């Protein structure tokens, strides 16, 4: 069974106007947990509470911080380190010094040789493409470089738990997967846990075992990422991990007659929905819009004249308005 990192009970963080975190009860366990939500949903507030920057206005957060005062895991020099949204960098220190200072947590004795620390610093500088800027101070860095430095510093600290608020948010999308790979490798090697916030469903799906969906300071969903992806409890929660086709029970005879016997609504992600040309099909394409990874197609049922937008992976055959089709689920 996974270790509990934090247990939140009816936690409120007051804000102006309204509560930034509004009565959240939640258990965060070992592993990688993503916090996802729209802008202003309370992601940063929740992470600031977990990282100990803010204290709840009411409710209780138990777990990591208090437990680690006495019982920190021996393998880790620090119980927790973080990547705040603004980087939380130290304006007077160079990039290199940022990493050296936190990696010193590894050294029990100040008189120890710091070769290991230097080696780690060099490696992280190279991995985050900061070697050529190592003598620069944060004020002279671009937003992307600041983001990378903040993540590199957190890895150099080697804590038991990493809290990252939209890590690599300002980094160009081409290099972002490369830096996520470094984070993943670190977690695999050290066994550390990660709690991070993001706006990107694909990062959650790729990186996180668990996900917490927030909306207006409240938890809409907390549980395994795979479950939210494949079997979401409702359309609102499902939408956090990207587009989904949601067919209510009474819509099934219209759109998916082969599943009309189902007792529940049918939820299908784009890659599981097949749109096939069929001259005798009961549906017709009204419009088609391709957006790279999936297509949005507006279809009309020729019997009931009902219209619905579906999202699916285009097969390459079906494109034209007026074309007759059938919809199938890829099992």
């Amino acid at each position, binding site marked *: 069974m996974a270790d509990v990192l934090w247990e939140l009970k009816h936690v409120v963080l007051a804000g102006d106007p309204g509560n930034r975190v509004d009565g959240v009860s939640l258990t965060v366990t070992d592993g990688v947990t993503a916090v996802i939500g729209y802008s202003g949903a309370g992601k940063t507030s929740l992470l600031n509470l977990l*990282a*100990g*920057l803010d204290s709840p206005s009411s409710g209780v957060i138990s777990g990591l911080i208090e437990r*680690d*005062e006495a019982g*920190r895991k021996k393998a880790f*020099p*620090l*119980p*927790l*380190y*973080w990547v*705040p*949204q*603004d*980087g*939380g*960098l*130290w*304006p*007077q*220190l160079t990039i290199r010094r940022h990493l050296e*200072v*936190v990696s*010193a*947590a*590894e*050294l*029990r*004795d*100040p008189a*120890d040789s710091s070769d290991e620390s230097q080696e780690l610093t060099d490696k992280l500088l190279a991995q985050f493409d900061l070697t050529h800027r190592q003598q620069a*101070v944060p*004020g*002279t860095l671009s937003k992307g470089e600041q983001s990378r430095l903040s993540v590199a*510093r957190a890895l150099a*600290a080697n*804590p038991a738990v990493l809290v990252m608020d939209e890590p690599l948010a300002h980094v160009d999308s081409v290099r972002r997967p490369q830096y996520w790979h470094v984070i993943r490798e670190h977690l695999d090697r050290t066994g550390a846990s990660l709690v991070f916030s993001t706006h990107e469903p694909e990062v959650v799906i790729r990186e996180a075992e668990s996900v917490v969906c927030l909306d207006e300071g409240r938890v809409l969903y907390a549980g395994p990422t795979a479950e939210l992806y494949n079997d979401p409890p409702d359309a609102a929660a499902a939408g956090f991990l990207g587009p989904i086709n949601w067919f209510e029970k009474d819509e099934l005879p219209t759109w998916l007659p082969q599943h009309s016997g189902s007792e529940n609504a049918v939820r299908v992600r784009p890659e599981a929905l097949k749109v096939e040309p069929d001259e005798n099909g009961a549906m017709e394409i009204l419009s088609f819009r391709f957006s790279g990874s999936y297509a949005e197609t507006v279809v009309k049922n020729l019997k009931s004249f009902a219209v619905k937008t579906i999202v699916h992976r285009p097969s390459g055959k079906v494109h034209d308005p007026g074309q007759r089709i059938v919809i199938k689920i890829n099992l």
Partner: protein
Amino acid sequence: MTLETALAWSIGRSMLVTTVALPMSLVVWRLISACQRSRRIHGLLVIAALLPLFVPDLLTGFTYRMTSARLIHSELATEILYAALLLFRIIALQVAVRMILPSSMVSAEALYSWKLVQDGRAGWWLTWLRLQVQGPLRTPLIAWIGGALFCFQEFETAALLQIDRHPITWSVWLFDAHAAGEPLSRSLLFVSEAMVFQIVLLLPLIILLPRRGLQISTGNSSVAASKSSPAVQATAVGVLFAALGAFLIWPLWANGVEAFRGLRALTGHSNLALRCQQILYSLLAATVASVGSLQLAIGVRAIGRQWVTLLAVVPGLCGSLVVSLTLLAVFQVPVLHAVYDSWLPMIVASTLWMLPRALLLVLLLEVLSPRTSIHSASLLCVAGGTAVVHGRNLIWQLVRVRWLIATVVLAHWCFWDVAVASTLRPVRFEPIVVRLYNEMHYGRIESLAAITLLTLVIPAGLICIAAVVWKRLPEGDKL
């Protein structure tokens, strides 16, 4: 001469000086912004630019008193001397304003977007004007008003330069009238006349000041980034060198030798212990006032209500002379009679006078030491090994040393203010600046220069000791 004449001179001078200072502060700020890549050069330029704000007015007046005496036959020359000294201070102030104010709330794109829908109607022009005032004109306007207020309130330098009648200022006129026995009620009436001009300046200042805190200018704005011509850069360098010469090099040259000679003569002098006592007590009062004003500023910031902030800053913005004369009247009401002849009125007046500056420093510290950076350092303190030492050092650099500097800066300004000290001091205690101010009117003698040097050196030494002690204190609550 009437107060009205003195007011007219002061208003005219303050408007002229702050207007002349405006373009000069712009070129200095551009030079500083252009040198951000080199931290050392940037730091030196900032120090040189802001130095005149930290040299006590009393010392400047003392240094240039003899020059003023030599110019006694030319009223114009005396006025120019005083205006030039003010000019460097106002340039420093305006550079500081440009450095700490957030970049324009209205972007160039927003202005252009409004231009695209121009219809030539009065409403369009009104909005255009409003966008200009909230946008590109806001910082120069605040700098101009701040400079005018600062000039208008200046007292110590004018008092010491005034050998005959010039420079004519309302502050010296009022101070002298009050010292000569003018009833307090009449002094307050005079104060109210001076307040009219200050309120005219304060109202737009309050409207223009940003609601959402400050930021340190990164110099990335289009104005800062645009490359200045060599002539403009040379002007900026010339202004900085002139300021350094006028406020550091010449005062050291003119007073240094005398002061060191005087120190030898002072050894064993009967009054030395008394003067040291005056310095220490004055420093204590100034420190209490500065800590008080900082704590009040933190409280005002925590409350976060605009009207509370206004109430807190308006008295201080009216200047130390206005604050001290008003509090003199307040502490004469029967219910406060018990504390009239105590340290309290002096400390309260200094606290109120410093409150706007304290609030500014608190806002600056919020920008310079973000909570997230401090928390990033404090997370290291639960580690083992050298990380704890690094974490504590970082917290010292990010928090404690900055609060210490803020306290020292405020205490420095309180310590050297003559108006509050001479008006509200307890009867049996003479603050050192009052003693210096009085003696500086009667010529230059070596012992006076030596006492002035001690007044500078003793607090500096004590501050260094305080810094060392504070650094060694165990990790306490975060400020």
